[in-house]
């Protein structure tokens, strides 16, 4: 924690960056922190409540974060995948950002989490994590904490349960879940990879996706979003965390990711040079749908 504060202060003092985005202790657990004055660097923290994927703030859709000059951002190994996604899709220039990698021993499923991690409070995505030591960063801080608590992958089991249902029952499950959606668009807004300047869902002439939160439009919206994030979703879980209706959006993202991996042999990676299936073609890609 101390080394993060020192580094942030140094980067700001030397004017390497104009803004450091990290985490701080807020009124309700950890929260994103924006430091422009080296004197404020002492409020930065890095602990197991630092759930937020701060790469979302690097998206070009946030005009109020422009004008600070170069930005330094604290990232966990998994967050680097989102940065890589932005770089891969030319939404961000590498030289405009300083990446402060934080070695990670897993995070709580909520920023208000308290105490050590257990199988019950560990974020789903941390199970089986392979990127606890962040790659491709300008600085990497902290000791590698002890291994994560292991559990059998509750989310994988949930997806398997849903797959075992017949079509009608599965549809009924999603109809029920999506019926709570009020189309606030929180899922889209917090997504580091939802980078469109004008989202399809905001277009009104013609209205490709109806804006009313009725079952037809909710299905259209969430299905469209799932497909637009196929091979792009980095499993940060921010959409599900932000959803005020408690819809398990992660299940959709993970299922689609599994399909992409099976069909295209691609998993989201922190290497921006590896093309995502949506922007690449390989002779061995399954082509049966255009035969």
């Amino acid at each position, binding site marked *: 924690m101390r080394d993060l504060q020192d580094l942030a202060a140094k980067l700001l003092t030397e004017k390497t960056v104009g803004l450091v985005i990290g985490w701080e202790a807020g009124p*309700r657990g950890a929260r994103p922190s924006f430091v422009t004055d080296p004197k404020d660097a002492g409020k930065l923290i890095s602990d197991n409540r630092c759930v937020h994927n701060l790469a979302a703030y690097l998206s070009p859709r946030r005009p109020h974060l422009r004008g600070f000059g170069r930005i330094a951002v604290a990232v966990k190994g998994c967050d680097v995948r989102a940065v890589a996604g932005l770089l891969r899709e030319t939404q961000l220039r590498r030289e405009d950002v300083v990446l402060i990698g934080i070695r990670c021993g897993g995070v709580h499923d909520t920023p208000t989490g308290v105490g050590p991690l257990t199988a019950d409070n560990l974020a789903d995505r941390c199970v089986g994590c392979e990127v606890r030591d962040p790659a491709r960063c300008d600085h990497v801080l902290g000791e590698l904490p002890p291994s994560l608590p292991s559990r059998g992958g509750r989310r994988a089991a949930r997806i398997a349960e849903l797959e075992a249902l017949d079509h009608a029952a599965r549809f009924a499950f999603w109809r029920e879940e999506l019926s709570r959606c009020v189309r606030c668009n929180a899922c889209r*807004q917090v997504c580091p990879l939802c980078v469109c300047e004008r989202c399809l869902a905001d277009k009104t002439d013609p209205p490709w996706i109806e804006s009313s939160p009725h079952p037809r439009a909710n299905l259209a919206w969430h299905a469209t979003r799932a497909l637009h994030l196929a091979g792009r979703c980095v499993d940060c879980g921010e959409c599900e965390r932000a959803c005020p209706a408690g819809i398990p959006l992660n299940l959709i993202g993970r299922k689609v990711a599994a399909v992409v991996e099976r069909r295209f042999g691609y998993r989201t990676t922190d290497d921006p040079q590896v093309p995502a299936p949506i922007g690449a073609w390989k002779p061995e890609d399954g082509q049966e749908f255009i035969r």
Partner: protein
Amino acid sequence: MSVGKEKPQMATDEHRLGEGVGGTTRFLARGDLEKLVAELLGAGTRVVAPVDAGKGETEYRRLASFAEAKLGAALPRRSLKEFFLPPTEELFRWRREGEALQLLETPAAHVATVILGAFPCDAAAVQALDKVMGWDYRDDPWFGRREATTIVALACNGQDGSCFCTAVGLRPDAVRGADLLLAANGEGYEVQVLTPKGRALVDGHAARFGAGRDTGSANVIRAAARERVAKNLQATPEKIRGWLQANFEHPMWKGIALRCHGCGACAAVCPTCHCFDIVDEPEGLYEGARRRNWDTCQTPVFTLHASGHNPRPDQNARIRQRLNHKFRIYPERFGELLCTGCGRCARACPGGMDLPELLGALEKLAASAPAPAPAPGPAAGALIPPPGGAR
């Protein structure tokens, strides 16, 4: 903590009396509450109450039986507003046959409803919204549902550090907007009958309600809850309003919303955010529906002009608007705050924006730089006439 001395003071409290007939007290035993719900359901009344929504959370939902109700537990994820202003609502349909265009009225069938265990902050919000919904135009769907609905509030114990009803002129046991207020006293509920609608519910099920027996313990519980919430935030909304009026261009706004994603979750869970969008949705070539849907000032498209100009260009401007609407504009127009201190926005925010924290900061700014006293009534030169004014 001198809770025993609270009672005489409360009897004169304006919030205790609400705006209806005031103050009759009855007693409702736990067993009788269950029977009351069974009677209501048996008569075809829709009963809505907080029910379990997993992970320790609750939601207001229609009850199939009393057993589902989780009274006095966690504040529901979303407020009561969706029972009066649904997230989407059909206003009318159209159909084209040849050259003829038919407009088909959507029948307004408002089911008789009792909302049981409403949180006082949610009940108060509904009453605050009556002002805007009945202002220059009377919103029939809103008032149709209002009239069909009886709100039985339950005095709250305070949820957590994000509650701040006491800082916005309410209390965990406020009666505003409620037809009945229940207060747990260990054996059952003391019942305050507040409005004719509340009276009708009690009279219609007279066998369930005993004579009021004021044990005093409900008052102890209520006073403790007030004290708990009051610790979270001390604020004077009038001072904040004056500061907002005088400081629209204050430099602090430039950095107010750095962590805000503009996601609108705050508006979705807010009991008083009521902005809506009206859309025409074709269904096939020859027919369609006009609907109104929840909207939020936190998105760019909310203020995007056809020219491409956006008068609220970024999140800082949108958060400034949110605070101004709640703590300056609505009070100017309607004489009350557009916030009941439920704290849901702070709990829901994925970026850690925190309204009680912001209000605390505004309070400090207002104290350090005394602003001119707010002008009485609407701002001079307002384009919109005041409620009840000349049209």
